[in-house]
């Protein structure tokens, strides 16, 4: 098994964190992982993105040119990375910020108003946790339990009050992923 994923959005939407949680959880579940962020001028005003590879065997290239999974939180990200998703691959689209969508019929598309749902759940800041839930719900590439465990230890140190909201976002994301 080898899954190559790109998560992309505006700087601040938490796409690097999506990748980090998935990579961390996959590592804990015994997989080989790599997490490669974009850095530098690309982040200012444009798109921030991260490439994550999860594999049963040693990872050669951490560079992803044809992703199996794309998480696009805004239109520029969808425009930039959408065309290169592998045929038969998966694109998770935040429809609130991707008004034009993408014209591809050879991939599975999960369309969800993710910004709105995040706001409903209490804060736009849980958008990335919602996305993690959608990834788990559609691909099963890591288990919910590992993410929950990591989220608990991460937020306990940082901000325990936010735990409930974040867990709720992951769970809601899984529902979205499962229902499609």
């Amino acid at each position: 098994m080898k899954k190559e994923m790109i998560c992309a959005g505006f700087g601040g939407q938490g796409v690097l964190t999506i990748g980090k949680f998935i990579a961390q959880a996959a590592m804990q579940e015994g997989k080989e992982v790599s997490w490669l962020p974009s850095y530098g001028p690309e982040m200012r005003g444009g798109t921030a993105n991260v490439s994550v590879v999860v594999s049963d065997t040693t990872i050669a290239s951490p560079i992803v040119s044809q992703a199996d999974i794309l998480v696009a939180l805004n239109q520029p990200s969808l425009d930039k990375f959408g065309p290169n998703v592998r045929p038969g691959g998966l694109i998770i689209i935040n429809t609130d910020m991707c008004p034009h969508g993408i014209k591809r019929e050879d991939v599975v598309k999960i369309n969800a108003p993710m910004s709105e749902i995040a706001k409903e759940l209490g804060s736009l800041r849980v958008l990335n946790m919602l996305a993690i839930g959608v990834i788990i719900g559609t691909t099963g590439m890591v288990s919910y339990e590992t993410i929950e465990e990591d989220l608990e230890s991460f937020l306990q140190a940082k901000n325990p009050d936010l735990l409930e909201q974040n867990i709720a976002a992951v769970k809601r994301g899984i529902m979205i992923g499962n229902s499609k």
Partner: protein
Amino acid sequence: MSKVLMKGNEAVAEAAIRAGCRLYFAYPITPQSELIEYMAKMMPKVGGTFIQAESEVAAINMVYGAAGAGKRVMTSSSSPGISLKMEGISYCAGAQLPAVIVNVQRGGPGLGDIQPAQADYFQATKGGGHGDYRLIVLAPSTVQEFADMAADALDLAYKYRNPVMILSDGMLGQMMEPVEFRPAKTEEEVQELAKQHENWCICPNEDGVNRHHHEINSLEIDPLVLEKHVNNLFVKYAEIEQHEVRCEEYNINGDNEILCVAFGTASRIVKSAINDLKTEGKSVGLIRPITLWPYPYECVARALHKNVRQVYVFELNKGQMLDDVKIAVAGRCDVKFWGKVGGIIFTPGEIKEKLLECF
């Protein structure tokens, strides 16, 4: 110890501390700033000293002083900052001082950009500073290897009393991969390591008085003395060439029709292309030099099996390693080069395309 997910920049810093590095001097620069940041946070916790110097030049001269006192010391920077350190590195080599210098390369020349590149190969392996000297140069290709090299570099530096450079790049510095650290040296072990160098370093005895006359110097004004000194350095370099050559052989076998040579980040992309071609029944091997100096000439020569009809060098520069590969191949086979510059990393698909042109 279990694996942790860490950036290369942080992993190499943690590994250096575990290997007994207690002094670190540097100046921030992207894409290696997480390294200095990690050292700033962790050095005080282990009783070490961290100084953010006023410049790269100051940092390397602090390294010169600390190494002269026999302490395990490290500095780091990225390409333009390494250029600034070159005078000090030459002095360290001349004075036979053990020091570890990490270069997290970015695009050049000049200020260039902050994306990953391999364009400091010449600087690292062919001089960089002035005078007849050599650096031991280690090139990691994973975060794990980057971390392991911190300890290896410190050990090599002290074994040979010579500066060692870890030639990494922005991708390895910025990316996260699982790392398993070697056990940390105890404070007693760190003290013990320092004692091993009392026969040459400038250090006080236990009562705090320095009774030994040791000189740490790179100035030999008498030509005959300098001649002898440089010749002695090269006796040492010959010994390093004999014992410390390292490389990785990947998919090397008698069926190989193409032999690739690539190091560091570039080698990983090449491996992906090789794996892909393997599923199509095409056999391509790779030699990945781990020591860029001393260079694994013999490994490359040995890998030239009879079916190899093309040697292909891939680098993130304009072909700085090409001459070394040609020396190794010695005219037995055609040698091609392809690379990308400007901080742009080639993709497995691009490498595959280049290799397919040779079949």
